[in-house]
């Protein structure tokens, strides 16, 4: 189901809000934590979460599988066996 422009823009604001909160969180974490291993782990988790948000919601990674399946359907139905069946 296609979203309206308003719904799409609203989603964008929600995602950027979460990203902003996570950015402030990683800044505070960097100031508050001195243990290198703990700090590295937390920063990595936050960075991965931020990257996932951008890739999933801004870059529409989920739609990639639709494109791949479209292409795959084209390849399958273009095989000689499929042509014979259709002919």
């Amino acid at each position: 189901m296609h979203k309206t422009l308003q719904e799409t823009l609203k989603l964008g604001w929600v995602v950027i809000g979460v990203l902003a909160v996570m950015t402030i969180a990683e800044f505070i974490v960097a100031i508050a934590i001195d243990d290198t291993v703990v700090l590295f782990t937390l920063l990595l988790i936050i960075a991965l979460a931020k990257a996932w948000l951008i890739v999933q919601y801004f870059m529409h990674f989920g739609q990639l599988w639709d494109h791949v399946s479209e292409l795959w359907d084209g390849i399958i139905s273009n095989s000689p066996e499929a042509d014979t069946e259709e002919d």
Partner: protein
Amino acid sequence: MTQHVPQHVNHRFRSLDINRLGLWLFLVSDASFFIALLSSRFFVVGTSTPEHVDQVLGLGLTILLLLSSLTAYKAEAAFEHGDIPGAKKMLLATMGMGILFVFGVGYEWHEAFKHFPPSTGFGTVLFTLTGVHVTHVVTGVLTLGFVFFRIRNTTEIGDNQFAVEGAVKWWHFVDVAWVFIYPTLYLLK
């Protein structure tokens, strides 16, 4: 012997799907380059970060790039829904923030030369990582400019869908790269 080619074959391979898949494959290969560069930081200087690294500037650059991702997202959304003037406005805003980001990195380099020049370990890492990244930002701004130029007089989507989508995806990729560069260069200690 003439080979029988059914009429429907050409329609099955939709060029838009091929373009999208190709772009994703390219982004994955480019991401591996950034991963290699990011890992070099730990081999060259470990996790230590000099005191003179400008935390406020780093945070400012991060916020700027995140905001530019929102305007790029809005540009794509507006274009897909047929709001071409709205898309053009958002593309211009994204390009403006991209140019500001380049100036910000320029200022960072100006300061970095004083405290950790490229001959030092951290300087090597900082100039390499930010240099490669800012090159991506510049190509992103140029690509968005090309797309803006292409749609400047159009009133409908036409065959510009992938141009907008591809340029915006490239911009988001630049943002994703910075999401990892920022803590690697500025926040570790």
